[in-house]
Every structure is written in structure tokens, then in C-alpha cells.
């Protein structure tokens, strides 16, 4: 970031401009914290301007549910439909052109709705694509895959093939193994049940080798990675109708239940830091939602076909 170290003679306008730039950059891994410190030290007014910017931005977090509702409303309103369609088209195009042009062969896109799908590849590899997920396969040797949602991979190791699977911010390489990948936006989990693979991401200083029994979680908000142990037999168990967790953030569990059990559970901000350990049977979704609430000592309230999780005894 090329930011002038502002001085006390800078106009307020410039200071605010720079503060906004620093704030936007602070969400990224390549944030120049030393430069930011130097800028703050240059003038106490800088920190005040930064606070104002960050507080204004933080207000969006507080009101996100209301703002999202407005967006939903705009989505169905005829006047905005074209805009949203254009956006969707842009998103599809972006996916298509984001693959290195040289490597793109014919691209096949698998998209699932409420039911998952089994994909068998020519080399004997197999992929179970979770419900509400998408996998695109391209490259002359089917060696480029991009995932959103969830999938369990059983990949035949072929040293001659440089298979790369991207899921949000991470890339998986050196794959000869069985593993599960779950991606929601920029949050990704990879759990290895057999063999090993290498995961790389902008947020990681260097690629990480993951062996069987290891899971990597990249937190979308902080772009940080965590490696935790995982029982190999629980990897990909959504295919058998249940899900196990060890200290998983509640929001993550709710996201999984939406995908695998088709049940929407809203988690208020105040409960987002709660974690869950245990196994849930997916069943019809309602059961899983009630089990989750009960195990956490929380209450469920019906809300427009879904549920809202809330503190018990209110």
C-alpha cells in the first residue's frame, strides 16, 4: 500500500481518505502493520479518523441481517432483477476466466441441489459432491477442480499428474488420498482420512502437509489457518447421514446443517462464538436442529420455515 505518512498539516479529508485505505487493507493478509503503526504515530488525529471509519464499518456487522433482508427484497423486485442477473452472469464468467487460460480444457460443472451426487473419473478417482454444492473440473487431464460447498474426494495418486483443487482461498496439491473439503465463501475445512496432501493459501506462510487424521480450517474472517486432529473414520461421514464436530463454531455447524439437512438455523451474533463438540444425526433436519440446541443448552424458535437459535429460558 502506498500511503503517505500524513502529517498534522494534512487536511482532514486526506487523513480520512488514508484511514479508509488502511481500514480496508487491514482485512487482508498483506496488511503492512509497520506502515500502519508509523502512520498512526505521525499524528494523533490519524487514530481518531481510523476509529471513525472502523466504527462506521462495524455498524454494518450490527445491522447485517436487516441489510440482507433489503437485498433479498431487491432481488425479487422486478426493477432490480436485471442487475442481479447481470451480477450472476458476471460471477459465472469470473469462475470461467479465473482458471489459467493455458490449462483450461473443456470445463465440466457439476451442481447439486437438495441431493448429493457421485462423480466417477476416468482414472478411478471418485468424488461425492455434497448437496447444494458445485464442482467444476477442467484441464486437459481433468487436473483442475474448483469447489464451493462440500465434497469427499477419493483420488488415485498419479505422480505424473499435477492435480490442483481450489476451494476459496486455498489450493490443494500433491494429492493421493481420501479427504473431505467444505467451503463456505472464504472459510474452508479440509480433513484427511487417508494418505496426505499439501494445502497452500495466501494466508499461510508456507504450504502445509496434511496427513491422515489431520484437519485444516481456514477462518474466512481472519484468514487464519488452524490444524487440528480429526478421527479419520469421521471424515466425510455426512455421506452416512451424520456429522461430528470438535470445538466447531456454532455458525459453522449451522452452515453444515443448511447444506446437508436442508434446515435453516439463524445464529445471532451473540452466540456465534459458542462452539459445539459432538455428533449429529442429519435425519430430516428438524431433529438435527433440536439435538444441536439441546446439546448446547439453547432454545430454538420457529421462524419463517427455519429456526432461530437463542439463549434458553427467556
Amino acid at each position, binding site marked *: 500500500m502506498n500511503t503517505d505518512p500524513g502529517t498534522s498539516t494534512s487536511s482532514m479529508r486526506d487523513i480520512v481518505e488514508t484511514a479508509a485505505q488502511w481500514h480496508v487493507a487491514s482485512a487482508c493478509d498483506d496488511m503492512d502493520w509497520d506502515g500502519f503503526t508509523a502512520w498512526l504515530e505521525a499524528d494523533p488525529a490519524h487514530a481518531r479518523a481510523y*476509529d471513525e471509519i472502523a*466504527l*462506521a464499518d462495524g455498524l454494518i456487522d450490527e*445491522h447485517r441481517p436487516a*441489510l440482507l433482508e433489503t437485498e433479498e427484497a431487491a432481488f425479487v423486485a422486478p426493477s432490480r432483477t436485471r442487475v442481479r442477473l447481470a*451480477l450472476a452472469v458476471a460471477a459465472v464468467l469470473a469462475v470461467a476466466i479465473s482458471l489459467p487460460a493455458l490449462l483450461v480444457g473443456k470445463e465440466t460443472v457439476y451442481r447439486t441441489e437438495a441431493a448429493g451426487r457421485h462423480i466417477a473419473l476416468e482414472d478411478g478417482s471418485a468424488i461425492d459432491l455434497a448437496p447444494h454444492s458445485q464442482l467444476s473440473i477442467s484441464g486437459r487431464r481433468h487436473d483442475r477442480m474448483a469447489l464451493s460447498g462440500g465434497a469427499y474426494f477419493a483420488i488415485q495418486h498419479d505422480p505424473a499428474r499435477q492435480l490442483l483443487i481450489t476451494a476459496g482461498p486455498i489450493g490443494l496439491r500433491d494429492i493421493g488420498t481420501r479427504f473431505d473439503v467444505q467451503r463456505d*465463501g*472464504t472459510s474452508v475445512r479440509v480433513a484427511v482420512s487417508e494418505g496426505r496432501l499439501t494445502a497452500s493459501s495466501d494466508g499461510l506462510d508456507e504450504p502445509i502437509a496434511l496427513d491422515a487424521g489431520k484437519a485444516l480450517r481456514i477462518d474466512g474472517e481472519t484468514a487464519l*489457518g488452524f490444524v487440528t486432529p480429526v478421527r479419520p473414520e469421521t471424515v466425510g461421514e455426512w455421506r452416512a447421514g451424520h456429522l461430528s464436530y470438535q470445538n466447531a463454531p456454532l455458525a459453522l455447524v449451522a452452515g453444515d446443517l443448511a447444506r446437508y439437512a436442508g434446515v435453516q438455523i439463524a445464529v445471532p451474533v451473540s452466540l456465534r462464538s459458542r462452539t459445539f463438540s459432538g455428533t449429529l444425526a442429519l435425519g430430516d433436519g428438524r431433529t438435527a436442529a433440536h439435538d444441536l440446541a439441546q446439546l448446547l443448552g439453547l432454545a430454538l424458535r420457529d421462524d419463517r420455515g427455519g429456526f432461530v437459535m437463542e439463549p434458553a429460558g427467556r
Partner: protein
Amino acid sequence: MEMREPDPDRSGLARLFELHRGEVRRFLVARCGSPEDADDLLQDMWVRIAATTVGPIGNGRAYLFRIANNLVLDAARARQRAMRRDRGWVEADGEFDDAIDERPDRATPADEALARKQEAALLEHVIAGLPAGAQRALRLHRIEELSQSDVAQVMGISRSGVEKHLAVAMKHLRRALHDCGWYAPVASGDEETGTAGGSTGKAQPMNRKPA
């Protein structure tokens, strides 16, 4: 400086913290304008880090700065909320349901709900009035919570283009909030006696000694 490569297991974070303590403190002093507040926040950081069981394996140094920055922001938010309550603006932080009844001297729940709606309406108004690019980038990144690189892909522009749009959006938001008197009037560093810790994501009562 003998530990160049903090290992990624449970003690990694604590080591990282020791390794970077000096520069993080320097940042905190610059960020909150007072060495005393900086030391309190550093203590809060230490408590949080000691309680963390798995170490980050990503950019640990950036992680520490991010924690530090969030702690300062939490404190600023707490001050802002207190001020808003007193002046009829409302905070919720997702926990206002519990807190309302305990504040009979403050605005009534109905007032609070109304003020909260006003706040949301103001945000919507400002966002709707943003320049097209800034509005789209802001909606995608902050409301739909796409990462900045995903926003760049969706909009078909560069990452720095996204950053510029977002910075424009932030400036507009700040301007609008400023114009309607949303910010706490006390903003100068040496008057900030109420600075305190608290942890990200959880609204905790402040347990700092009185200044």
C-alpha cells in the same frame, strides 16, 4: 531472537507473542494514544493467547496485530455504544434482549428498537446512495461477506480496484454518520479515560480499574 520459526503447535502463539511483543505494544500505543491503555490491552491479549489451544499456522505476526487492532476497536465500540444509549441511539450487539430490562434508566425497549431501526434505515440510505462501483463492492464484501478477492472476481476488476471502491464506501458512511451526530463527541486521545479491553465477538463487561 533465537526462535526464528515458531512452531505451529499449541505453544506457537505464546512464543509468537513473546517474539513480537515489542512491536505490538508500539502499535497499541500509537493506536490508542496511551501507554497505560496499551499495556492493559497487551495484558488482555496475553490472557486470550494463553487460553488458545491451537496455534495459528498462517501469518502469525499479522494475527497478533489483528487481535490487537480488534481489541482497540472493541473498546472504541463499547464507548460508542454507551454514548449512543445515553443519547437515544441504540446498540444491540445481539445481546440487547438480555440487557434491556436491566437498564430502566435508559431509553425504553420501544425507543431502542425504534432508534435501531433508524440506524439501519440510515445505513440503507447511505449505501443506496453510494456510487455504483463502491455500492456493489460494499454489498458483496460487507453484507454478503465475500472476500475481497472474490469480489474482484465477481466484479471483474483488480483487488486494488476493490479496495478503492471499499474505501470510497467507508468515507461516505463515516461522512453520513458524522453529519447526523452519531459519533461520540469526546474523541481526543488524552480524554479517553474509559478505554478498556474485552474480547472480540463477546460483549464482556469491562473490568478495568477506573482511570
